[in-house]
């Protein structure tokens, strides 16, 4: 039985105007456990708080109920008051008799009666309150960034500049990501490499940044402030420390017929390779599926020519374990596979290319050294057709994505414009559903493409691209504005393929217990207010893994995520919300229902030995809640059939006691 004090606030006339506060205090005095019930003009005032503090001490109160304004207003105030008087702050309950009573009811009798009932409910609840102590968990002052594209690099640089060590894990042999493959950037037409590579170098040279290239995250354990991550370093067959990146091995490698993924397979590379000239780390990598030595055991030429002695054919995948306080996901995107879009003849003609391939074809470091040539015959194309929304905004269709890929309108305008600028003899058509240009200088950019560069924008969809015997492509399309069917004989067709999250995102999300939407984009903690955080505490989102975005947006989100990470890492420890779920291990079935509904991944299972009722011991699978991660929503408490899961501060019995008090 608690010793409860009830404090009814007048709030001037705000409450006392329609609630007879004296009567409320008088009525609540006879409730079980109430040892003092009093009223005062302003409970939140210095004098009011003193009254509460004195009562706590004088009457040895174990719980207090304040009948006043909304707990959203002054719950924190009165908790502090209680704490100051030596009472656990979670032994305070507020009965909201202002916003939810005096302000909505005009009749004194009605308001008073309701206030008494609300007071009773709060008393019934406080009877079952238990003192709660906020736990603390230490923060490891190191961040992990997963993905080394522009998003990851920017996040890492910002965190590192604030003085915290950062590791970047990149699955490719080099960082740089998609931006490294891009030629120019809209709307300014800067050279992508010119602005990206310095950042890559900055990252590489930053004493707080450590890059694990050609590596993957293998396992994530722990929680905010204290993640433990296992990183798999894939075998490169080249010692990255010894390798000087001289490129001699690449030159001498006899196996030179490997499709070059950096150029999207449009040219070949050798079995030992450095993806591109500005790669970071600039270290060679042996492709074991192509290397003659690895496949047949015969060759070993690279080892012979390597002066640094960096080649090591026996190298194995290795694992590193590291602790982090925060994890940033920056896994980026890929264009979708176009196998399902047969109407565009992508698989039938080499002259039908994706926009990213087109980037490589116009890039000075690309397979054609920057000259726009048709992949099929290396001739200069004259008529180019750009098709927008290939796989984007396919609502209801069985193929493609329902969302807008966001960047296609602008890069297509860029491609079309560059085409016309470099090769004025070309005719450039762009087929679109809508042109979406909501960004700084975006619409101006698009209008320049149309007005200054004479790109022919046609609202309509391409129905079919048919390769012709003469090597040309017959594009059949409809012009929705003119209402006519068009047939265009094109030399090249460029498809603005939809973008989708990288394949690695889904398994990573599982490891991180971070939630994803149906398109495999990571969900943010709040779509408006917490767009750079995952609902899983300590996991942050940067770049296209959260949704399609262009470079400036990516960079700003990257910096945003970095700011959040820094905000976390500057703390020495995290104070946990004590109103979290907890599992009664004796009743837990280990069925995983709670784990499945937890948005934060706060619930884990372990096999524990128990003494069973029949005097035997048994190993049982039981849930445990990490109070540092749990946010206290209570979803698990209802998912749990046995009632083993309960929520501090809002326990089953507390809520039922309130129900009982209200209904009686």
């Amino acid at each position: 039985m608690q010793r409860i004090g009830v404090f009814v606030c007048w709030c001037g006339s705000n409450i006392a105007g329609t609630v007879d506060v004296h009567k409320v205090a008088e009525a609540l005095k006879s409730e079980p456990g109430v040892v003092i019930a009093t009223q005062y003009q302003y409970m939140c005032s210095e004098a009011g708080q003193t009254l509460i503090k004195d009562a706590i001490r004088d009457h040895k109160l174990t719980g207090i109920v304040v009948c006043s304004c909304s707990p959203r207003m002054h719950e924190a105030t009165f908790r502090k008051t209680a704490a100051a008087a030596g009472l656990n702050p979670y032994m305070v309950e507020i009965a909201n008799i202002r916003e939810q009573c005096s302000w909505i009811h005009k009749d004194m009798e009605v308001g008073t009666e309701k206030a008494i009932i609300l007071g009773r409910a709060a008393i019934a609840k406080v009877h079952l309150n238990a003192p709660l102590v906020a736990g603390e968990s230490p923060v490891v002052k190191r961040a992990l960034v997963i993905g080394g594209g522009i998003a990851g690099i920017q996040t890492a640089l910002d965190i590192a500049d604030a003085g915290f060590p950062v590791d970047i894990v990149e699955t490719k042999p080099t960082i740089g990501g998609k931006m490294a493959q891009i030629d120019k950037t809209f709307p300014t037409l800067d050279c992508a490499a010119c602005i990206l590579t310095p950042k890559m170098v900055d990252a590489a040279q930053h004493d707080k940044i450590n890059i694990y290239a050609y590596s993957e995250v293998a396992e994530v354990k722990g929680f905010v402030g204290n993640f433990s991550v296992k990183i798999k370093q894939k075998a490169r067959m080249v010692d990255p420390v010894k390798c000087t990146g001289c490129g001699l091995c690449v030159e001498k490698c006899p196996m030179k017929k490997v499709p070059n993924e950096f150029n999207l397979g449009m040219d070949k590379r050798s079995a030992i390779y450095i993806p591109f000239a500005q790669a970071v780390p600039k270290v060679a990598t042996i492709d074991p599926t192509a290397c003659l030595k690895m496949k047949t055991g015969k060759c070993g030429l690279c080892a012979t020519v390597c002066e640094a002695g960096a080649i090591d054919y026996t190298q194995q995948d290795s694992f590193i374990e590291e602790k982090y306080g925060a994890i940033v996901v920056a896994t980026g995107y890929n264009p979708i596979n176009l196998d399902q879009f047969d109407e565009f003849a992508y698989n039938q003609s080499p002259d039908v290319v994706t926009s990213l391939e087109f980037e490589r074809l116009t890039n000075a470091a690309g397979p054609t050294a920057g000259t726009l040539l048709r992949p099929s015959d290396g001739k200069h194309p004259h008529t180019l057709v750009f098709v927008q929304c290939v796989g984007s905004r396919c609502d209801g269709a069985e193929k493609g994505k329902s969302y807008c890929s966001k960047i296609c309108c602008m890069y297509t305008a860029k491609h079309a414009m560059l085409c016309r600028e470099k090769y004025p003899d070309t005719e450039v058509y762009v087929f679109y559903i809508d042109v979406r240009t909501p960004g700084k200088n975006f619409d101006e950019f698009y209008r320049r493409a149309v007005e200054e560069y004479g790109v022919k924008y046609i609202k309509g969809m391409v129905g079919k691209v048919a390769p012709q015997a003469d090597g040309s492509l017959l594009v059949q399309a409809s012009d929705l504005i003119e209402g006519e069917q068009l047939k265009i004989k094109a030399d090249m067709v460029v498809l603005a393929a939809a973008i989708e999250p990288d394949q690695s995102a889904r398994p990573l999300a599982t490891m991180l217990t971070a939630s994803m939407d149906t398109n495999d984009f990571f969900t943010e903690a709040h779509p408006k207010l917490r767009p750079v955080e995952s609902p899983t505490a300590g996991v942050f989102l940067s770049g296209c893994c959260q949704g399609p975005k262009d470079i400036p947006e990516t960079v700003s989100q990257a910096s945003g995520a970095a700011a959040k990470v820094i905000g976390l890492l500057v703390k020495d420890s995290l104070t946990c919300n004590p109103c979290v779920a907890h599992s009664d291990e004796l009743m837990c079935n280990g069925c995983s229902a709670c784990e499945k509904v937890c948005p934060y991944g706060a619930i884990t299972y372990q096999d524990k030995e128990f003494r069973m009722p029949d005097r035997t011991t048994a190993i049982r699978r039981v849930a445990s809640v990490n109070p540092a991660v749990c946010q206290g929503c209570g979803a698990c408490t209802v998912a749990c059939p046995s009632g083993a899961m309960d929520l501090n501060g809002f326990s089953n019995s507390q809520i039922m006691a309130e129900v009982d008090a209200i209904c009686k």
Partner: protein
Amino acid sequence: MKQIKLDSIQSLFKALSATRTLYLPVDTPAGADFKKYEDGVLWSGALNTNRSAKDFFFPQTENMMDFKVEGKTIEIIEPIRPDEDFVVFGVRACDARSFELLDKVFLCDPVDTYYKNRREHGVIVTVCCNKPAETCFCTNFGIDPTAPGGDVACWQDADTLYLQANTEAGEALLQSAADVLAEADDSAADGVKETVKAIMAKLPIQNLDLSAFTEDNLLNLFGSEQWKKLSEACLGCGTCTFVCPTCQCYDIKDFDTGHGIQRFRCWDSCMYSEFTRCAHGNPRLSQVERFRQRFMHKLVYFPANNNGDFSCVGCGRCLAKCPISMNIVKVIKALGGANE
């Protein structure tokens, strides 16, 4: 002996229900159960009801008293005890015997006044079982369904019901329905009795060897290895206890109604894991122990305290209703022979 034609049996029910509440077995969507007689309610032809007739004297839940608690003071409000006279018609011999067994528990010192009060207000009309089932084994406990007992015993042939008062209350009851009853020869029901006796002789569960179940053998039986195997499939539900006419364990609980505390008692089952749990532990932690308790109670403990009377009447309800078909007959057969 009195008689009435079956086709005018409704007039008997009307007459009986005129002065008191009449309960009789009525068909429900699944089996028969005792229901209050109202116009047009038909007497079920079923051999036995799903629930036993013990409800009438020992209902599943019964309000014992109320409390008003205010501050430090308590007020005890005694319940209003039902004072309505009632008659239960159609009780079988086995259930009729169960009342005698319940009496031994509830009417021994100190008397349970709740039970006693109901018992004093009830009149029992039994009916001879014309078509015993394979699950019937009442004869093992000395019950003769052709002499079903109660305040009034009845026999039924193809078209007539014969009634014989056994007690003063029974006489009074028949008197109250004298208008619809005709006189009958005392031997009128002998034919029915003979037929039933002949059928009884063919019942599959007869001559159960109960000789092992004595107080002397208590520790032997208690320690038997058989319990583990017998109880292995037991689900720990309370079906057997709740359909049993002689199970009488109860719980006393308080319920906060929001405007007072109601103290009620309700059936409880020794098969339930919570039955003996208390603040400092539980002496019967496993289902084996609980299962053993139930059968030891029926076959050994109860007889030890009650002149050797077994606390089973062979009604066969547990045989028919146990979800896993484990029952007292299987237990008797397993243990009866196993011990000297």
